[in-house]
């Protein structure tokens, strides 16, 4: 890292966290982010468990770091992230990060992910998971999704399905996200590429647990994404 991320930079960074039924996992994630001095916009995606109460419990500890919004219906990770991206604008952030709230991503990586933005080398960053760290089933699904992202959106990235991404305020205003579900990962990359926003890949660590394994890009989700990509390509 050539540039030192200061406390001021961290304070100007807002982390968008979409959360759906994460009552058992979200608290350590939020508190680790708050401890490091970042701000957060958390979107409860119509959870049917106690996610909202758990987030409020953390908000009591860090009232100024956490901004909480709640979707009255579960609308999917895409809509929740879109809501976060829109809500975050009123706080005038310099940098906006979005990451998973299930503990799959580590708050330790935040600094590395925003560093290219802070130093001015890039205006968008995607946090890529090393393929070798992924379980085999995921590995294959991700390779297929990378290939499809390349074919449909014309962007070659090493991890198209990552939920860890960062973008500057100005660049965020240029992109439009319409995806409702997991297509958001590929769509973010397409939007960044189409708007000529300089971007970088940063290697991040991924923590796979049996719980996080059950979420994310499995073959059913992959098929859904494929269908949505084709629809985008044909009708948008």
């Amino acid at each position, binding site marked *: 890292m050539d540039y030192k991320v200061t406390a001021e930079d961290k304070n100007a960074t807002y982390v968008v966290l979409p959360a759906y039924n994460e009552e058992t996992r979200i608290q350590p994630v939020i508190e680790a982010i708050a401890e490091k001095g970042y701000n957060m916009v958390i*979107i409860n995606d*119509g959870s049917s468990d106690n996610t*909202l109460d758990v987030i*409020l419990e953390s*908000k*009591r500890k860090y*009232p100024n770091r956490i*901004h*909480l*919004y*709640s*979707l*009255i*219906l579960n*609308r999917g990770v895409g*809509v929740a992230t*879109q*809501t976060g991206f*829109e*809500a975050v604008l009123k706080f005038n952030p310099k940098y906006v990060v979005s990451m998973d709230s299930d503990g799959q991503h580590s708050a330790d990586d935040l600094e590395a992910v925003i560093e290219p933005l802070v130093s001015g080398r890039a205006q968008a960053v995607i946090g890529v998971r090393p393929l070798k760290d992924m379980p085999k089933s995921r590995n294959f699904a991700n390779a297929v999704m990378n290939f499809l992202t390349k074919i449909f959106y014309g962007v070659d990235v090493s991890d198209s399905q990552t939920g860890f991404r960062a973008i500057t305020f100005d660049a965020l205003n240029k992109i439009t996200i319409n995806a*409702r579900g997991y297509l958001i990962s590929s769509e973010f990359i397409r939007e960044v590429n189409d708007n000529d926003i300089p971007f970088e890949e940063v290697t991040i660590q991924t923590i796979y647990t049996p719980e996080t394994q059950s979420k994310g890009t499995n073959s059913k989700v992959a098929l859904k994404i494929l269908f949505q990509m084709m629809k985008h390509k044909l009708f948008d």
Partner: protein
Amino acid sequence: MLIYSILFPILAIIAIIVFFFRFRSGKLSLSSFFIWSIIWIFVIIFSIFPDSSMVFARVFGITRGLDFIIITAVVLLFYLGVKLYYKLDKLEDDVNKIVKEVAISNEISLDDEEEK
């Protein structure tokens, strides 16, 4: 007379009446009501005079009248399926917009929670 040549016209007339009431209550546009009425009128004609479908079949190069009716029905169903899909898609977009709007304009503060 075969059963279908009595049953289908009755069903078609009921359908036209239902569509007419939907049109009158503003749930159906005049053009949709018109198109649907034509479809139902054809159902009546084909049921009472099955051989008349041959005339249309020949225009499209189809040998049997019944084949023409089946193909038309399949095309119509496919069209309806696609139309419904787009309508549903648009509705979902609208729901998302509303849910998003409601969430963004109601930031949850700790005071809200204590008021509960």
